[in-house]
C-alpha cells in the first residue's frame, strides 16, 4: 500500500502540475493567458535578460521534464526519478508562489487559479518524491547480523 501510494501520488501530482500551467495565470482586459503565453509575452515586452530570460525560456519544457520523470521511473531508476521530481517540484512551486505574490495594476491582473493548481501539483510531487527517497534510503540500511 505504502509503496504504491508514493508513485501514484507523484504521478497525480505531475499531471496536476502540468494542467495548472495551462490554466489562466494572467488577465489583461477580457483576455486570459496561461503560464506559457504569460511568460512569452513578458519576455517579449520586457526584453528579459540573464537568469529571468533563461527561466522563462526553459518554462515550456516543464511538461517534457515531467514526462521524463515518469519514463525514468518506469525503467526502474526510482531514486533518479524521485530526485528529478523533487527538483522539478521545488522549481515549479517557486514559480507558482512568485506568481501568487505579484500585484495587479491598472491594466493587468494576475489570476490565482493556474498558480494554485500548479502549486498543489508541485506539493504532491514534493511529498511523493520525498517518500520515495526516504523509503529507498531505509531499504539500503543493512540489518544487524547475528552469527
Amino acid at each position, binding site marked *: 500500500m505504502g509503496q504504491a501510494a508514493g508513485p501514484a501520488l507523484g504521478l497525480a501530482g505531475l499531471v496536476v502540475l*502540468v494542467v495548472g*500551467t*495551462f490554466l489562466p495565470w*494572467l*488577465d*489583461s*482586459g*477580457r*483576455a486570459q*493567458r*496561461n503560464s*506559457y*503565453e504569460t*511568460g*512569452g*509575452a513578458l*519576455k*517579449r*515586452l*520586457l*526584453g*528579459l*535578460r540573464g537568469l529571468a530570460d533563461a527561466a522563462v525560456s526553459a*518554462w*515550456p*519544457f*516543464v*511538461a*517534457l*521534464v*515531467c*514526462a*521524463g520523470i*515518469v*519514463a525514468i521511473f*518506469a*525503467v*526502474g531508476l526510482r531514486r533518479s526519478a524521485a530526485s528529478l521530481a523533487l527538483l522539478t517540484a521545488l522549481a515549479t512551486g517557486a514559480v507558482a508562489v512568485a506568481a501568487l505574490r505579484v*500585484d*495587479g*495594476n*491598472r*491594466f*493587468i*491582473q494576475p489570476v490565482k487559479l493556474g498558480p494554485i493548481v500548479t502549486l498543489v501539483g508541485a506539493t504532491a510531487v514534493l511529498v511523493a518524491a520525498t517518500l520515495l527517497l526516504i523509503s529507498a534510503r531505509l*531499504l*539500503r540500511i*543493512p*540489518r*544487524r*547480523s*547475528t*552469527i
Partner: protein
Amino acid sequence: MTQPPPGWPNGEPPDPQRGGWQPPPAPGGPGGWPQQPPAPGAWQAPQFAPQQPAAPGGWPQQPDPGQYGWPAHQPGSPQPQGSWESLGGPVYPPQPRPRGRGKLIASAAVVVALAAGGVTTYIAMSDSNSNGASSPRDAVQSIVTDLNKSDLIGVLDDLAPGERRALANPALEEIKQLKRLKVLLPNADPNNVSGVKFHVQGLTFADKTVPINDRVQVVQLTGGTLDVSSDAAKIPFTREFLDAAFPHGLPTGGNQTQHIDIAQVMRDSNNNQPIRIATQKVGGNWYPSIFYTIADSAAGKEVPTAADSIPAAGGTSPQDAVTKMVNALLKSDYTGAIKLLSPDEFAVMHDYGGLLLQGAGGGTPSGSTLKDLQVKTEQVSGGVTRVTLSSVTVVTGADETTVKVDGSCVDVTAKGQQKRMCASDFVTQIVSFLEGFGVSAHVTPAQQQSLEDLLTGFTKVGVDTTQSDGKWYLNPARSVFDVTSSVLSGLQDNDLLELFRFFASLGN
C-alpha cells in the same frame, strides 16, 4: 589482549618442523582434501572464489544464506563489511530477468509518457511564441481583436518588436510608480481598469497592400466602425488622489462615447482615400507599426526609395554614441544624427530618413562645439543602458559654458562666473514666477519638499541606448517614454498627492 588458542604450547603456535600441527594443504592439491562433499551436517566452508565453476562432484557452489545464522543478503544492497567480507561473501545465483510482460509495460509507459510530454511541450512552446501574423492584413486584424478585448498586453505584444520594447517597459514602469505614489489602486478589475473601451467591427480592407520595401507594407482600411467609450470614473484612482486632484469632486460629463465610421472619415477628411496602417516584417512575421504609420502619413504617402535610406552607424560605447549625437546636433548634421538611432527601434528613420529630411530642409550649424562631455551610465530593464549627464562643456565663440550636475544641484560656469542652483532655489523661483502673474501660491512645507523631489527627479532623466550588431545606438522613443517614470522615481510617499494639492490650490 587476544588469548592464544588452547593447546598451543607456551602460547605459541606449534612448529611443524618439530612434529607439530600442520595446516591442511589446499583443497584438491596433492595430498589435499578429498574431492567429495562433506558428510551431511558437517560444516561447509564458503567458496573462496565466487563464480568459480565447481568441479564435478565438488562442493556446493554457495552456502544457503541463513543456513549458518547469517542474514540473508538482499540483492542490490551493499555487501556487509567485516569478517564475512574477508571470506569473500556469499555467492548468489544471477537475478531472474524481468519478465517479458513487465518490460513491455515499462516500455509502453516510457513511450506514452514521452509522447504526451512531447505534444504538451509543443503546445506550450507554441503558446509561448505565439506572436506576429502571417500577413500584413492579419497583423492589423490581430491588434483590432486585442483592442476589442481591452487587452493591453495583447496590443503591446502585437506591435513590431522594437516599438513594443520602447513602449512596454516605460508603460509598466509608470504604472508601478503611480501605484507606489498612491495615485492608482493596487488592485482593480482588469475589465474596466483603463477607463477606455474600443469596439471595432466590420473592418474591410483594400484588395492589395502598398509595399514600401521588402520589410514594410501598408494595409488600407476601406470600411468598418470604431466605437470608443471613455469613463474617467472607471479609472481606478485612489480616494486620496481624487480628493487631492479634484477637491470639489470629479467634473461631470466624464463618460463619453464616440462613434467613427471609417468610410465617412475617408469621404470627409481623407479625399476618399483609405485609412493607411503600416505593418513591418520582423523575423518572418508581420506586425502593425506605429512609427511606420506616422512616417507614411508624414511623407504624404510617398514611398521612399533606396536613395532615401540612411544606414545605421553606431558608436563604440553608450558614451561614444551620445557624444557623437551631441556633436551631430550642434552641427545640425541630421543625417549623422539619424545614423546613430537604433535600427531596432527606429528602423523607420533609416528607411524614411532621406525623404523626411528633404521635406524638413537643412538646418544651420549652432556655432557651438562640444569641448567635454562626462556622463554616467546605468543598466535598466530590457538590455537598455541609460546615459545621464554628469557635466558638459560647450564652447561658443570665445565663451565657454560648463554645466555640472551635483545631486539635486546644478553648477553653471559661464564667462568665468559660477552659479550653483539647487532644487530648493528652483522652487523659490517657481513660486515667485507664479506670484508675478498674480497667482496665489502658498507652499506648505510638504509641498515644498514634493517640488524639490520632483525637480531632483529631472536630474535622473537620461538617454536610453541599446546595442545592435556590436554597435551602440540611441533609442529616442524609449528615452521619451522613460522621462515620466524617471521624474516620478524621485518622488516619495505622498509627494505626488501633495503636488496635486498644490496645483489644485493655485488661484484659490
